[in-house]
């Protein structure tokens, strides 16, 4: 999956001569925390986060009447200009690494020097949830299976036999014994009982769920 498939394209922006107050109001209105700052050609000049604005605001603990004009200063005085950006053709996994390595929460997406989109950490998390299939009506089955070639193919034949559509499969190592893997399958059915019977019959250990505190 690449970035252009998940990025937001209707990006809310300001120019560098807008006031800090403009930025503050816009963030409140759209419930967003980052504003890319662009010139008339949509070229990215900087970015302002809600933290930058907070740093610029007077402290609520001191008499702020003298500082009221702070909000009228132009954004260019507080915007960050050393920006990490992404490209629409970047892989989503790469973006995940960028967020992991840098203390940032959003990534402006730039193509030919022009701002074309934006991705936040929240968007990335949402995409992950969608990838697991958890937003579509489905049941979840967890299976402990031997860690060897061909297991997935053998196992999924059970689902074919029952004509049940698989929405997603997640495979991860079994924490307690590396000879096994956990396979998490989301299936499009309200009644996985016959599938579970078949899987158990084929020798797999199924969690759907078990009694609390009982480990596979």
């Amino acid at each position, binding site marked *: 999956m690449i970035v252009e498939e998940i990025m937001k394209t209707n990006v809310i922006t300001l120019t560098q001569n807008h006031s800090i107050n403009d930025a503050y109001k816009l963030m409140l209105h759209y419930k967003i925390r980052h504003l890319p700052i662009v010139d008339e050609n949509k070229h990215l000049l900087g970015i302002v986060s809600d933290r930058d604005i907070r740093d610029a605001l007077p402290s609520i603990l001191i008499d702020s009447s003298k500082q009221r004009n702070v909000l009228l200063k132009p954004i260019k005085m507080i915007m960050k200009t050393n920006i990490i950006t992404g490209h629409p053709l970047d892989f989503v996994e790469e973006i995940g690494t960028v967020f992991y390595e840098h203390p940032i929460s959003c990534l402006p997406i730039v193509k030919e020097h022009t701002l074309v989109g934006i991705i936040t950490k929240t968007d990335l998390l949402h995409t992950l949830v969608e990838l697991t299939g*958890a937003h579509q009506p489905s049941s979840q089955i967890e299976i402990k299976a031997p860690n060897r070639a061909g297991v997935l193919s053998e196992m999924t034949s059970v689902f074919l036999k029952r004509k049940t559509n698989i929405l997603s499969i997640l495979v991860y190592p079994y924490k307690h014994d590396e000879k096994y893997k956990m396979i998490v399958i989301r299936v499009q059915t*309200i009644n996985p009982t016959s599938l579970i019977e078949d899987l158990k019959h084929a020798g797999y250990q199924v969690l759907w769920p078990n009694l609390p505190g009982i480990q596979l």
Partner: protein
Amino acid sequence: MNQDSIFIYSPELLKYKFSDHHPFNPLRLKLTLDLLMKSNAIKTNDIVPPRFATNDELSLLHDIDYIEAVQQAGQGLLSMDRAENYGLGTEDTPIFPNMHENSALLVGGSLTAADYVMSGKANHALHLGGGLHHGFRGKASGFCVYNDCSVAIRYIQETYHAKVLYIDTDAHHGDGIQWSFYDDPNVCTLSIHETGRYLFPGTGDIHERGHDKGYGFSFNIPVDAFTEDESWLTCYKEALSEVAAYFKPDVILTQNGADAHFLDPLTHLSVTMKTYKEIPKIAHEIAHQYCDGRWIAVGGGGYDIWRVVPRAWALIWLEMTENRNDMNQIPSSWISEWQKKAPVTLPLKWEDDDCLYAPIPRKAEITEKNGQTLEKSLFPIR
């Protein structure tokens, strides 16, 4: 004539049947009615037949092309490719003869119930064939073709301009109704169900609170697997009384899936008949407290059709008709009629034995977790 309670039924409702081996078995309706009759708890003139919902009425919720697809499917004219796009012809919702007509009758039953209650011809109406809460605008899902509850609520809005509180106690999340009215502040949905961690449909998290103008009018209490009576009832009673006080409905619509019972094969909750006796009792109180008695009750899930569903559903009617049910024993005539057809031993009493199941490990933790879930879910109105 004004009646206190009506029971919607006709034998045609039994034709909403996918196959002989499908877990959604309409025989439940017949077993329930027969139990009530043999208990002398229902009279013939309490029974009102359902009408058919028209295509116009169905399209209050459903897409025209979906309705057409269901019509074609029921005549054997829908290709498998197209059927799959509509969720038809799957293991959950296989195609069966006349599936449009038979599904439209279930919806019509809920409309009949709505008309009786909203026009004041009856205070309460029970339609156990309804409660197909997984049906979507353009897709069949989870044994449900058309969503009678969503259609009935739209119909009540258009015809009677009333505020509806929908209460769903099925073990599965009432996703179809929640998404139908997600942005509507005049319909409030409250669903108590087993967490979607494993169980279908996976949604129904406490954070699903509504969208746009409807924000704050969707409540979900996802309880942990293996939840028992006491904890389940605490969640139900507190949530229902507080949500009703907050929303002040004109009418309540309760979906009474009976699949949270310990014996149900499809879910992992551990409630007993105690819960099924309390559910309609509290709903009844709320209906009189806020809605001048207006209460429509429908069925839903429930897959132990012999030992659980007939008793659980009959209890709704007993509560509705203020039959205090001092009966202890199930009528022997009902048992002798059905035992030979049942693959399990039928219960002899209305209540479950105390030793129905072995003690659940970590009961205290499950109860504590459910308490937190309830607290978080109701936080905005507390």
